[in-house]
């Protein structure tokens, strides 16, 4: 078995099947959704309407017109119950036009020759935006023609069937348009030839393939037109010979008009024949033209430049009015320039604006600059010194068996930290702080208000276990210093009692006039 030929044959069959695909999707949709009405059946009815009332008359149909048709069909089909014709129309038009997501139906199959998938986008009807109405698409027309058994007609082109039907229906004006469209098709092929020629000149990726497609296209056009010309000329000849026959076919009294249109059709056909011959000539001349252009193009740029200059000189020499030179600029001199929104506007570069990041919280004074403020410096110094004194105090109390007098403490400070430590401005605040009323802090930590009531005069108690539970940010400097020293020394005692004796004044250092009440420290 020759598989290449076999696959080619199947590919061709698949291509023919593409126009059936939307219909069977509609069929499946209707089946899946258990619709009350037969959607595919009504779809065929609407497509027939679009051919008979639309395509054959050269017009497109408004939604209202289609809706009326559907309403009548539904009334005939389902006499027993009422169906919402508006809803049916909307569903039907959507599904005939798109796959319900706005896209065409995508018919895809594996092509074993090219070893890749071959896809076709198909829709049966299309919405004419300019006329705001629907018309049958080429695929829809193809589908409708191919499902009706017309053995002899199926061999010839869709255009021919249309044209014949239009003549039979007496729609001569539409038939005239069909012939004109056919002529336009020839002109389009001419344009394709021009594109191909340009592609050949500048070199394209698939020039050889395009050339063969073009030549095949011309041949198929020739064959199609040959049949068309023969059949249509025969029909027209018969019609024009017998004027009475036209009246019978068209059923119109104004047959004179029809006769004139038939004449026009004949003229158009002759023109089509000439165009057709021209197309053949163009096709045969293509290689020669290609070579000729290649030769000319070598000097074309140079020639063009001098050509422009020559024209300009001639214009000036012959004293032509200035309008001649300003044709290119003419639109600029319009009294009122028409401005319009161009879609290219959305592709223009924009000036990107950057927003300042929002400040979510107020900055603290010291966050404004890196410069340290005096208060901060003092706090820091005092904290450090308090820690040193506290460390010395608790260490000294521990060394003395948990009982210590202020004098002994001051002597220890002088011995260990030096005489300057007694003159330091933070010593007196430290000793004062040992007397401050911190019971409220203790009470907060212990939640025991009884303590406040049983408060002894001139006695301050520091309960380390409870102090540890208090909030760090609420602690006084002295508490923090004592806690830190307690932890650093790893003391087991949990209570530190400071008793002051206001009546006994002692000198902090001999020769240094600084005095303070005597104090006693107990650790237990």
């Amino acid at each position, binding site marked *: 078995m020759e598989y290449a030929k076999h696959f080619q044959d199947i590919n061709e069959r698949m291509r023919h099947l593409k126009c059936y695909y939307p219909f069977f999707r509609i069929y499946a949709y209707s089946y899946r959704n258990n619709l009350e009405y037969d959607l595919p059946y009504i779809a065929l009815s609407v497509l027939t309407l679009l051919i008979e009332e639309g395509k054959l008359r050269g017009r497109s149909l408004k*939604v209202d017109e289609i809706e009326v048709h559907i309403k009548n069909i539904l009334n005939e089909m389902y006499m027993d119950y009422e169906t919402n014709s*508006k809803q049916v129309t*909307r569903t039907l*038009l*959507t599904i005939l*036009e*798109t796959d319900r*997501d*706005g*896209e*065409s139906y*995508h018919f895809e199959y594996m092509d074993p020759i090219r070893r890749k998938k071959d896809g076709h*986008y198909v*829709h049966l009807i*299309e*919405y004419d*935006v*300019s006329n*705001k109405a629907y018309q049958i698409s080429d695929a829809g027309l193809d589908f409708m023609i191919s499902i009706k058994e017309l053995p002899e007609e199926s061999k010839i082109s869709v255009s021919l069937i249309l044209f014949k039907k239009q003549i039979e229906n007496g729609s001569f004006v539409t038939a005239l348009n069909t012939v004109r469209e056919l002529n336009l098709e020839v*002109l389009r092929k*001419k*344009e394709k030839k*021009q594109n191909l020629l*340009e592609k050949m000149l500048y070199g394209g990726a698939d020039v050889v393939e395009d050339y063969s497609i073009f030549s095949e296209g011309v041949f198929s056009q020739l064959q199609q037109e040959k049949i068309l010309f023969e059949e249509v000329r025969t029909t027209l000849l018969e019609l024009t010979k017998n004027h009475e026959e036209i009246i019978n076919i068209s059923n119109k009294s104004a047959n004179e008009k029809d006769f004139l249109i038939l004449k026009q059709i004949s003229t158009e056909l002759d023109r089509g024949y000439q165009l057709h011959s021209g197309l053949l000539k163009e096709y045969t001349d293509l290689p020669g033209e290609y070579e000729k252009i290649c030769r000319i193009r070598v000097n074309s740029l140079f020639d063009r430049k001098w050509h422009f200059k020559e024209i300009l000189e001639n214009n000036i020499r012959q004293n032509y009015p200035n309008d001649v030179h300003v*044709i*290119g600029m*003419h*639109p*600029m001199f*319009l009294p009122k*320039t*028409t*401005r*319009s*929104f*161009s*879609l*290219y*506007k*959305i*592709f*223009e*570069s*924009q000036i*990107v*604006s*950057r*927003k300042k990041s929002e400040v979510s919280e107020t900055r603290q004074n010291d966050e404004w600059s890196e410069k340290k403020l005096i208060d901060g410096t003092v706090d820091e110094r005092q904290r450090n010194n308090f820690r040193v004194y506290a460390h010395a105090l608790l260490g000294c109390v521990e060394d003395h068996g948990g009982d210590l007098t202020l004098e002994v403490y001051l002597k220890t400070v002088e011995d260990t930290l030096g005489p300057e430590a007694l003159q330091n401005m933070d010593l007196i605040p430290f000793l004062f702080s040992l007397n401050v009323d911190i019971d409220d802090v203790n009470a907060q930590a212990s939640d025991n208000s009884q303590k406040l009531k049983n408060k002894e005069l001139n006695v301050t108690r520091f309960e380390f276990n409870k102090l540890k539970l208090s909030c760090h940010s609420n602690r006084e400097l002295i508490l923090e210093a004592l806690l830190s020293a307690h932890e650093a020394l790893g003391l087991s005692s949990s209570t530190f009692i400071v008793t002051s004796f206001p009546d006994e004044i002692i000198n902090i250092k001999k020769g240094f006039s600084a005095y303070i009440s005597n104090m006693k420290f107990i650790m237990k």
Partner: protein
Amino acid sequence: MLYQMLSTGSIERFVYPKHFMRYEQESEIREALDFCAEKLGLYVCGRGDSIFLSAGVGNRVFGYTNEDVKNELGRGFKNPEMYTVFFIMNVIVSEFYKESFHDTLRINLPKNYLIGIIEAKIRALSDFEDLDKISEEYKFNFREIKDLWDSLPNVEFRDDSDIEIKQKGTSSKTAIINETVIFMKKHRLVDEHNNAVYPTERFKAIVSEAYNRSDVQTDIIEFIDDLTCLEEEKNAET
């Protein structure tokens, strides 16, 4: 032809068959028209039976300025709203034209689908750590668009078949989308039917031409198009 196109915006084959045919058949005429239009910062966009003229990028003589756009969009439209409108237009273009195809495979864009896809794309924008940097890179105000969109309520669509009331203005996401579509309709770029947006021939011609122009910044549309692709990939991974 240039004069005519400047006055009406297009030339139709059926209105000027002789001119149209000559334009089609004679390459010199095409070149001359392109040459003159280009000198004026205009693009000639031919498609099917029509030739359209469109102001090129940055053309302030024949094209709209930002102020013109804002004025026409109406009260409440400031820069962020206008940029959002441009973003929506970009989404519409990217939905119709995938991967720089010459023609669109999509027939229409249902409106509920449109709001869903815009929402998804802006959600994808949120995933970028440095959106400001991306905005700078693409020269497109993604940050402003995202911030505005996030601040707007998502009003439900009302089916326009029975109720003619349509939400307009800048008060909701739906309203901005509606205003965008109305604006595009006014400039013959899209049409609305059956609660879906349809592209016009002018729209198709301009977009096709955009992909052939080196001065048109189409990478922005590729970026916007890829936004939801990235999300789809992520979903697939998870």
